[in-house]
């Protein structure tokens, strides 16, 4: 199957204002957040307790989905090596809008412990539109749940528009990504 068929090759367009049931849609979105099951860093170790008995994420309708096509949220769980950043961008762009990014750990904010490492990025929001940062190394499950509640509130208020920002300023993000990722052998728009 040719790339043309798999990936739509024109720049994504912002959907028009949803007149029909905008309120219902946003309440539903806030109450069923599906997280793509991709543990990008060491924060993934705290995502396991998050959906077991102690801190039950599913109470809030947060569930893990194994494929990005069905997910709404991607959790960047900690530092991002350059090799992983490439995969994360690909996964993020394969997710269907509206989509949100939750970044865990101080290493996504300013590099954290790895501020001088030659292989980990220092600021995630140069490459992906981050909706919620959860600080800490590593953040406790309670704080992750707190971050999710903040995300839900902003979704209900219609403020979690990181994905629209990503589409509008795609050139800015692309230039940042391209100067970090040496070989960009991915389709330009792969959603």
């Amino acid at each position, binding site marked *: *199957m040719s790339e043309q*068929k*798999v990936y*739509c090759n024109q720049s*994504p367009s912002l*959907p028009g204002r*949803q007149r029909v*049931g905008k309120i*219902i*849609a946003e*309440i*539903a*979105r806030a*109450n*069923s957040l*599906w997280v793509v*099951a991709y543990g990008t860093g060491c924060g993934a170790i705290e995502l396991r307790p998050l*959906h*077991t*008995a102690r801190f*039950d994420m*599913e*109470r809030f*309708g947060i*569930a893990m*989905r*194994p*494929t990005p*096509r*069905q997910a*709404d949220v991607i959790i960047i769980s900690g530092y991002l090596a350059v090799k992983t950043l490439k995969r994360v961008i690909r996964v993020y762009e394969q997710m*269907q*809008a*509206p989509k949100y990014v939750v970044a865990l750990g101080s290493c996504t904010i300013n590099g954290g412990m790895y501020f001088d490492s030659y292989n980990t990025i220092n600021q995630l929001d140069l490459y992906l539109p981050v909706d919620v940062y959860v600080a800490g190394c590593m953040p406790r499950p309670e704080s992750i749940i707190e971050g999710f509640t903040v995300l839900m509130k902003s979704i209900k208020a219609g403020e979690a528009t990181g994905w629209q920002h990503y589409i509008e300023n795609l050139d800015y993000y692309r230039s940042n990504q391209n100067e970090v990722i040496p070989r960009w052998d991915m389709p330009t728009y792969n*959603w």
Partner: protein
Amino acid sequence: MAVTILVAFATAVLGLCYGLLLGGISRKVMARIHGRIGPPVTQNFSDLVKLFFKRTAIEHGGMFWLAPMFRLTGGLGVLFLVPIVVGRFSVVNISFAGDLLLVVYFMFFGCLGMALGAGDSGHPHAVMAVSRGLAQMSTYELSFSMVVLVLAVGLRTLNIGDIVAAQSGGIGQWNLVRYPFATAAAMIAFLPMQMAYPFSIVLAPQEIPIGPPTEYGSRFLSLMLAGRSIFGVAKLVLFMNLFFGGASNIADLVMKTLLLYLYPVFVSAVFPRFRLEQSVRFLLVVPTVLALVELIRVIT
């Protein structure tokens, strides 16, 4: 005529809602087994709405678009063909009160459409899952059709209404009591139909995440969720009619279908997943032998 259409429409909507609710209940029950609180029982409703309002920008060709339709059609077909409540106040959608073989055909129809669409999506996981699923389906459909044969021979009819009427005389008349082996075989075949462990080899998240719906995103997935819910309800009603004496009123219907629905949930809570060949071997041997025993009992 108008009344029939109205009743059919109401049946579809109510079936959808009931299916979503059952899904929520099963998630709740599973969470309690894990020791969790679990999602609210209305979780599947918000999932459905959320998925419906998501952006859809995936193009994989015609069959890819059609597959959720096939699934929905299969579910609705089964639901319409099966008499839901038989009694003083009865809900029978399609007036000729469909033939059991036609129902079985419709149950095939949904899965086959799903398989075609998944194959068109071009994802290797989807293709593997389709081959797995078809192999498994052929095995459990074999035993299920033998059970149908048992009922046909034993009750001298393939009309579901007559089958329900034949067991209207209290529990003693149920096919559960009359044909216990056939019922056991059918209940074993019911597990893979509901994609319950240990037979859930199609959507195997740790092996081929996650099978046919790998590429299916927002609206497709909401349609498939709706189709699966209706399909589930239809299957429940069918099995209730075939073995558990049908439903003479709404309370009867709800109780029986709920119990029927929880049975695969409890089974899948305590069993790992079979490998493909193990599942096929099991499904080829155990339910088939049970159905054969029943068939011999019935014929002699």
